């Protein structure tokens, strides 16, 4: 498999605090790669660096052969980022928001229509797309944002806690949507502290804690290695063995 994303020795310092201590991993084409770990482990910092929001203190990130430091604009053209606590413009109607975002990626009117139509389908908000975003519930906003993130069929979708704020039914739907999109060739890098969700979604996972990757592999490999029934126990065992 050709990796679309390669992360090597990534470090990030916030003053005295070392948020990332040199992490490395690869994401292959058409793969869902999950970062799992507790709050403050460094998951969001990693995703924000790859999404070009933060600059790394050290290390190298390459995406489709482009270096992050030299070509951040190439990253922005081909990636799509869904932050954990994202919002949409409250005065815009859902439909207008999708169109507004589509225009940044599309090169002609046809493409805009195609992206918006896909966004509508993914968000599954029906007639509520005609209402202003300010009237949406948290779950509806999240679905709209997921539609926005996937509608352009990015080479890499970076999803930070994609089901955050969603109820059980909506969470299941979102997981199914993500799975079906990967089949169309999209790669996904996602993070979650919900290890069962990551286990369900991911082809491979990396266990991250205190700015370091403790272990990586397919969920099955990890479960076998640590002789654990699920990823939560795997994580607990890997933290213990790293101390």
């Amino acid at each position: 498999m050709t990796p679309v994303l390669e992360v090597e020795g990534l470090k990030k310092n916030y003053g005295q605090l070392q948020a990332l201590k040199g992490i490395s991993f690869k994401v292959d084409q058409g793969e869902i790669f999950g970062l799992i770990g507790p709050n403050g482990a460094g998951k969001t910092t990693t995703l924000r660096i790859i999404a070009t929001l933060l600059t790394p203190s050290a290390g190298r990130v390459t995406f489709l052969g482009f270096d992050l430091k030299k070509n951040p604009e190439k990253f922005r053209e081909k990636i799509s980022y869904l932050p954990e606590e994202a919002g949409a413009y409250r005065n815009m109607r859902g439909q207008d928001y999708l169109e507004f975002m589509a225009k940044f990626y599309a090169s002609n009117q046809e493409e805009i229509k195609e992206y918006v139509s896909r966004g509508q389908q993914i968000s599954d908000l029906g007639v509520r797309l005609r209402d202003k975003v300010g009237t949406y519930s948290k779950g509806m906003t999240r679905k709209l944002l997921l539609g926005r993130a996937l509608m352009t069929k990015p080479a890499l979708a970076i999803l930070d806690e994609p089901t955050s704020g969603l109820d059980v039914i909506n969470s299941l739907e979102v997981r199914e949507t993500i799975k079906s999109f990967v089949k169309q060739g999209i790669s996904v890098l996602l993070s979650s502290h919900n290890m069962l969700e990551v286990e369900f979604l991911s082809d491979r996972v990396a266990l991250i804690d205190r700015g370091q990757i403790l272990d990586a592999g397919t969920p099955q490999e990890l479960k076998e290695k640590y002789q654990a029934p699920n990823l939560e126990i795997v994580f607990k065992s890997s933290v213990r063995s790293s101390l």
Partner: protein
Amino acid sequence: MKNFGHLLVKEIKELVNKQLIISLAMMILIFSFIGNVTKKEMKKAIAKQKIAVLDLDQSELSRNLIGTLNMANFIIDEQSGEKEQVIKQLQTTELGLLVVIPAGFSREVSNLKPAEVETYSYLRGISLSGTRSSEVVRAVLNTTNDFLSNQYLKKRLPDINPAEIKTPIKNREFILVKDRMAEGSSAAVIGTLYAQSYILPIILMMIIMYSSQMVITAIAMEKQNKTLETLLTVPISRQAIAMAKMLAAGLVGLLSAAIYLYGFQMAFSFPTEELSSATGGGVALILKQLGLTINTQGYILFGLSLFLAILCALSIATILGVLAEDYRTAQSLNIPLVFLILVPYFISLFADINTMSLPAKILVLAIPFSHPFFAMQNMMFGHMNMFWLGLVYNFIFVTVMLIWTARIFATDRVLTMKLKWGKKKVVL
């Protein structure tokens, strides 16, 4: 460029929201109401004043005095009867002043003794028309005194014109501006210049204040609504994001200021037709002779000075917006900026920058918004070095600030920069 235009439209739409439109419409209505009331009051003030006169002397001289008052822009409502009764009767009318010419008035004047007239002012409120009563009394007394002194002088010195005795010195007033000189009243020239330019500082203050407030709010709202992170990852340069916000705020600020100004003019502009005096044409000629007029080139230079000052305000406001975490913080961060705008505003209204002490002058001119406030004055009075220095200073200021803004937006400081008030709280 396509994406920039697309983003600019969104920024303008975000700023021109229902609240802004309603507040501007309300403001126009309020100013229009104030304007109608004020103009009515001013028309009343300018119109001929109606006064009541009770002539208890009934002499030729008292009739002449009433005739003089009539010619001196007063409408006379003659009363008859007992003084006390007339005073009481007038309480129920709208008349504001009663002049009583007592019996024996002409006898006193004939004997060259100080004569008396009595004035009764009816105060019915503290409005503009109410406070005018003292001015009317003064005008009546001046006319009466003038009339009486002329009578005395005519009697004592019948061969001499009383006006020549009362004003023996004739003053020819000249005004000098640099190497130009013109004959005319300096008070009239200053008055005309002030009337022409009093609105300018208000426009400047409003444009700068509105634009800066809008850009701070726009960035703070992106942070508060958690939309900034997504926007920063779309394929458009960070500089374009900052510029779109600044340009949209500048345009909407300009529009809001123009609407406010329109309302302000409706409310407080002088009714020029009524106020036009005989000096109007003369003063215009004097201003031209003294070079105190601005030509097209001058207006272009002034526009450039204003444009640079707006850019200064927008760039400072953009950085302050980055520091803000939400709408409330943005409002607090805007306060120091407003104060910086108010300093040159008040100085341009109440002081002369050229006569200030050097340290005070440096402090005022260090504020980039000061320069357009004094630009017109500098151009008219030939202080072109000051004008050019201001322009260069603002250009350097804007360049530095824009580079700084671009750097902040290009790095993660756009997300991580925060203003720390005091010590950090420790959460356990």
